[in-house]
C-alpha cells in the first residue's frame, strides 16, 4: 500500500484521489479525517495532514468549519483531466521502452492492445451471468 522512496504525503494524497476517481468517495461527501488516515495507514498524523492540505490547495477538498473535509464538486473532472494528461508519461513511455528491448514495434503493440482489450471486454460481459 505504501511504497519506499516516495514522499508519504504524496502517496496519501494519491490514495484519496484514487477513491474520488473510482467513485468510492463521492463529490460533496465527507473525506476521511487526518487522524483516520493516520490510523489506517499507520503514519504520523502530521504527514497525513500534509497530504490533505495539498488536496485542499489543489481544490479537490474543502473544509467545512467544525465538521471536517469534504470533496469539492468538480473534483473528479479535475483529477480525470490531470491523470489523462499524465497517462502517456506514466504508462505508455515505459511500455514503449520494454517493447523496444523485446523488438516489438508500434504496430505489434497496437495489435496486442486490441487483442487484450477484446479479451477483457468479453470477460466483463460474461461476468455476472454464469451460463
Amino acid at each position, binding site marked *: 500500500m*505504501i*511504497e*519506499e*522512496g*516516495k*514522499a*508519504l*504525503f504524496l502517496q496519501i494524497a494519491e490514495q484519496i484521489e484514487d477513491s474520488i476517481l473510482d467513485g468510492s468517495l463521492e463529490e460533496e461527501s465527507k473525506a476521511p479525517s*487526518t*487522524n483516520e488516515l*493516520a*490510523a489506517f*495507514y*499507520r*503514519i*504520523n*498524523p*502530521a*504527514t497525513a495532514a*500534509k497530504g490533505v492540505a495539498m488536496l485542499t490547495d489543489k481544490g479537490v477538498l474543502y473544509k467545512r468549519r467544525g465538521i471536517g473535509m469534504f470533496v469539492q464538486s468538480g473534483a473528479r473532472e479535475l483529477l480525470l483531466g490531470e491523470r489523462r494528461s499524465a497517462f502517456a*508519461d506514466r504508462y505508455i*513511455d*515505459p511500455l514503449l*521502452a520494454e517493447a523496444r*528491448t523485446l523488438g516489438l514495434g508500434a504496430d505489434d503493440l497496437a495489435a496486442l492492445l486490441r487483442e487484450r482489450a477484446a479479451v477483457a471486454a468479453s470477460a466483463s460481459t460474461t461476468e455476472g451471468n454464469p451460463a
Partner: protein
Amino acid sequence: MTAVIEVNNLSKHYKDKRALDNVSLSLEGDAIYGLLGRNGAGKTTLMSILTAQNFATSGDVKVFGEHPYENARVLSRICFVRESQKYPDDATPRHAFKAASLFFTNWDQELAEQLIKEFQLPMKQTIKKLSRGQLSAVGVIIGLASRADITFFDEPYLGLDAVARQIFYDRLLEDYSEHPRTIILSSHLIDEVANLIERVIVIDDGKILLNEETDAVRDRAVTVVGDSAEVDAWVASREVLHRDQLGRVASVTVLGALSSEERAQVTASGLDLAPVSLQQLIVRLTQKASAESGAENQEVR
C-alpha cells in the same frame, strides 16, 4: 511553534571516550521524533542529559526554556522510559504504575489498564521475575499512560515480539493523535518506525549526522542498477553512498532526489532505478561518515 528542547554545543566525555561532540539541536513541541544511530553513538547519553539524569561536560541544554537539573517544574513534565530501568527488588508492576500515577499529573489510569490487558502483563509478579519483553511492556505502559509533555522512549521494544511492538506503535499513534505532545523515540528498528516519525535525527559518533523531516528524506537517495560502464557514467557527477558489483552489473546508491526528466533519462538508457528505504539510507550515510573519519584519522597519523 516554539522549541521545547534546546541543545547548544553540548559535549560529554567519559574518561577517554567522547560520547557527545559539540551537539546543537532545537526541537519544537507536538511532534514525534526518531532518534536513530548505532549502539554507542550517543543517543542514551543525550536523552539522559536532557532528563537531568546525567551531567554535560560542556555546553548547555534547556527544556521548556529552563535548565532541567533539580528543576521540579521541568521534570514533572518529562517521562524517560529507559531501556535498563531499575526497580526496587520487591516491586510489582502494580507498584510501578501506582508510583507513576502519583508523579505524572496527566496519568490516564484507563489507558494503563487497557494496555496491561493488551500486553497480558502479570500484575502480581515482582518486576525482577518478569521476562525481558514484560519488563519492556512495563516501560511502554508508563511512557504512554503518563502522557507527559515530553516522553523519551529509549529502545522500548527489547524482548517484545512483533505483535506486541505493533500494539505499541498503534497505541502510540492513536494516543498521540488525541493528545498531541512531544515524543522522542530511539530505535534500531528503523523500518518499523519510519512512518511514525515526523522528523529523523541521526547521531553518529557523538555528532548529529542528519536532522530533517522524514518525508523529505524518503526520496533523498536512489539506487541505479545496470551495466557497470553505463551506471558509472551516470553517477560520475553525483555523491556515491555505496557501490556493489556482480559481474558486469553494478548497483550504485547515490545521494540526491531525481527529477522526473532525470528518471526518464535513466530508464531510457536501459538502467533500473530502485528506491532506498530510510533504513538503507541511514546505514549508508553512517558507513560513509565512519569511512571518512577513519580516513582522516589515518592522515593525522
